[in-house]
């Protein structure tokens, strides 16, 4: 997986598989501090300390434990090679928080990629979950919370063409409005 947004999708899918009813996603690009931070927090079934070690071990995870594939160990290695880290905090029965950080300007840092598609995919395909998404670039913030929208819709599916169009534009424009341009290009 060559973009951070795909890893983010993978981690959030783990939260969905863990039976979470609430998932919070934070993507924070601090150009000023030269850091790129991503977190996924959920209220799913959680893991004990032994399981956390196992999901970070590339040689443990196999067909018998399908919940987490090779995604996390590879992402941890990628973060550490970019002056960053990946940590997992989890309590059984309470939930899990995965945090990843990179040096923003590091030459080997994966691009963030298509964040809008990742968020839209999650919100559409797991509508039973309360999604709180925050995308931050220095002092600018885009917040997306699906709960007011779900309440307004009262059971109309999100894949109704007009609703889908509304959601896609809401998320795409919210992200584009604050997304930094590639270095060397000014706004």
């Amino acid at each position, binding site marked *: 997986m060559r973009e951070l947004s795909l890893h983010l999708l993978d981690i959030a*899918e783990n939260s969905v598989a863990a039976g979470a009813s609430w998932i919070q996603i934070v993507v924070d690009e601090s150009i000023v501090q030269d850091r790129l931070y991503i977190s996924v927090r959920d209220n799913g079934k959680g893991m004990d300390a032994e399981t956390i070690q196992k999901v970070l071990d590339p040689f443990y995870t196999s067909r018998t434990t399908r919940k987490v594939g090779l995604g996390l160990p590879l992402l941890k290695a990628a973060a550490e090679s970019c002056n960053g880290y990946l940590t997992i905090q989890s309590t059984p029965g309470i939930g899990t928080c995965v945090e990843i950080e990179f040096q923003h300007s590091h030459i080997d840092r994966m691009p963030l990629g298509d964040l809008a598609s990742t968020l839209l995919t999650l919100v559409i395909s797991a509508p039973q979950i309360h999604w709180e998404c925050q995308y931050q670039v220095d002092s600018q913030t885009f917040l997306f919370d699906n709960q007011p929208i779900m309440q307004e819709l009262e059971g109309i*599916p999100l894949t109704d063409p007009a609703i889908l169009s509304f959601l896609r534009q809401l998320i795409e424009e919210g992200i584009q409005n604050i997304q930094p341009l590639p270095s060397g290009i000014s706004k």
Partner: protein
Amino acid sequence: MPTVKSLEDLKRIREEALQKRQVKAASGEANIVVAMGTCGIAAGAREAMKAILNLIETENIPGIIVTQTGCIGLCEREPIVQVQVGEQPKVTYGKVTPEIARRIVKEHVVEGKIIEDHVIPM
């Protein structure tokens, strides 16, 4: 200046959607399930999902529910998309590129023709 999307916009869209749904309700709904395990995501499940959503929006196709599932144990044939139209049996497609995903919506869901070349026998 980009348009500001508000809940007021959503209220109006919702009313329009409700009216259209009453017309559509008789013909039965289609379910599309995209497998979103690590294997699926690495193989391009998000792009398949995006192609499906994009076609629903641009061609204005109502009555399709799109959801996700985890790894179904056929990692080497990901991205996998399952389709069920009304009461008909579920059909599983493998190696679903964005192009195949669009064909699944157009040919299978809308026109009722299964794309045999890409079906995984279950």
